[in-house]
């Protein structure tokens, strides 16, 4: 037990040190332990080289079945304070064994917000831990909605106007989900968005899913937003989830939602674009000292279960509507996660000192 505590303390120490030197130019590295399904690991900068060596670069995991099928892109961590998507994406990297088609996963979509404390919630620590097999804690960062301003060369403008004419508050220039499809010579956040857009095009992605969270009770909680080309698949997905007893509300992506992934990925790439949200206690203003992992009503394992079930349902729906299938094994169902929690479904350290 003392050994485990020591490991946890060392991990925490390293993390605090990393946060203290937050302005470092290198991308943050995270505790992601790829499983047998991962056939290649790359960087987002492979699609936009100027990102290399910046905090905006991030790992890209490829899980190729080697068999025909659809190419699917799943992104967590657009917002660093929405952990269910990060953990759902991490479980895909660690557990999914593709059996048809190809899965591309980016657990930390905007890696440049993960070390930023925007003072939004002072009662939520900048990290959280999940105990995996053998009682070993794994530590994950809890970041911010927006890119660390220290990483942007220019201060925020008064008003931010997207490439396609969307108008947002100036600070939203650092919100990845307002700056799609990005600009190759734009701000760091815009360049991240640009690189993602290039990835979707160059990898010929058929289905793209952006994983988010909202406050508990928020109108966006348990919502699936679908681009108009993906809307029928959204209907089938929500009905499929309903049959499993999981209620999701479907909303169309409106044309005026400029800069948002479900809008711009769908407009600027051939992908069928989706965005989903679960209810995060850490984003709920009514909660004091929220526990983002073990909240009794909205525990993290339940939210991750919903997100993984939704991904599965979307892929079933797109296949039902004629797209080539993208299938995988080894990923827990919603019921698995409700029964087991997250621990057994995240890879444990292979060796301990």
């Amino acid at each position, binding site marked *: 037990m003392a050994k485990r505590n020591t490991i946890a303390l060392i991990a925490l120490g390293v993390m605090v040190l990393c946060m203290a030197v937050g302005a470092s130019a290198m991308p943050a590295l995270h505790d992601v332990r790829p499983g047998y399904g991962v056939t290649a690991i790359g960087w987002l900068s492979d699609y936009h080289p100027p990102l290399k060596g910046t905090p905006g670069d991030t790992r890209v995991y490829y899980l190729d079945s080697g068999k025909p099928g659809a190419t699917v892109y799943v992104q967590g961590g657009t917002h660093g304070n929405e952990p269910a998507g990060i953990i759902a994406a991490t479980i895909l990297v660690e557990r999914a064994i593709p059996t048809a088609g190809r899965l591309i996963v980016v657990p930390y979509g905007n890696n440049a917000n993960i070390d930023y404390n925007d003072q939004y919630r002072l009662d939520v620590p900048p990290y959280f831990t999940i105990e995996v097999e053998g009682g070993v804690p794994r530590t994950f960062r809890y970041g911010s909605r927006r890119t660390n301003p220290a990483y942007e060369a220019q201060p925020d403008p008064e008003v931010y106007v997207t490439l396609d004419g969307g108008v947002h508050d100036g600070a939203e220039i650092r919100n990845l989900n307002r700056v799609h499809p990005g600009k190759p010579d734009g701000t760091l956040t815009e360049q991240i968005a640009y690189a993602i857009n290039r990835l979707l095009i160059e990898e010929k992605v058929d289905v793209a899913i952006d994983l988010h969270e909202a406050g508990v009770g928020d*109108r966006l909680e348990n919502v699936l937003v679908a681009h108009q080309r993906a809307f029928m698949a959204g*209907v089938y997905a929500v*009905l499929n989830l309903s*049959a499993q*007893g999981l*209620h999701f509300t*479907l909303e169309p992506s409106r044309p005026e939602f400029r800069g948002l992934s479900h809008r711009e990925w769908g407009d600027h790439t051939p992908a069928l674009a989706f965005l989903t949200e679960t209810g995060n206690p850490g984003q709920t203003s009514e909660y004091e000292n929220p526990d983002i992992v073990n909240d009794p009503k909205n525990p993290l394992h339940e939210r991750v279960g919903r997100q993984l079930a939704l991904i599965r349902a979307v892929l079933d729906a797109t296949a039902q509507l004629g797209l080539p299938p993208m299938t995988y094994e080894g990923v827990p169902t919603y019921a698995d996660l409700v029964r087991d929690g997250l621990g057994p479904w995240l890879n444990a350290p292979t060796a301990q000192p």
Partner: protein
Amino acid sequence: MRKAASVVLLVALLAGALSAAPAFAAVEAPALITSAGQSPGALMVRVLADQAGVANTYDTLATADALAGAKSLIVVIGASQKGLGAAGIDVNQEYTRVESLLAQAKAQGIPVIAMHVEGAPRRGATSDDLSRLVMRYAQYVIVRADGNEDGFFTQLAQQYGATLRLIDKTADAAAALRDLYGN
């Protein structure tokens, strides 16, 4: 003895005939499916109606003309600002369209089925206003139970003498439609 055998045979034949007969259909197809509020619920109901074998036409912005040939009207309630925006209408225009359609259905003696299948997240002032409107005309109501936790639809169904069926899941609406249409 011969008389008793004849009675047994008659009962057996009657029972056989009854079991072979289609279930009682409260309403007839084809149905016109429309929305009241432009949420995706109407599209979900169309998919479920297809699954239930209910012949239908689907028009989220249906006006009175669309009732030609319809033997029932399914109005799926659920206000969505995104949906209204995408349709290019505001809630007042939607209310007027739905009211006019319902009045025409009543004039033509076409039964109305009100459906609210997206649960509690699809409640709210605008949805509730549309529900009050549709329930004035509905003979049958199918509602996802978590959208009725406050008894809103139960009360309206009692007030207007409509038959209410609560379902646990949106997907269960297919079975409810199958029952209603005797499929």
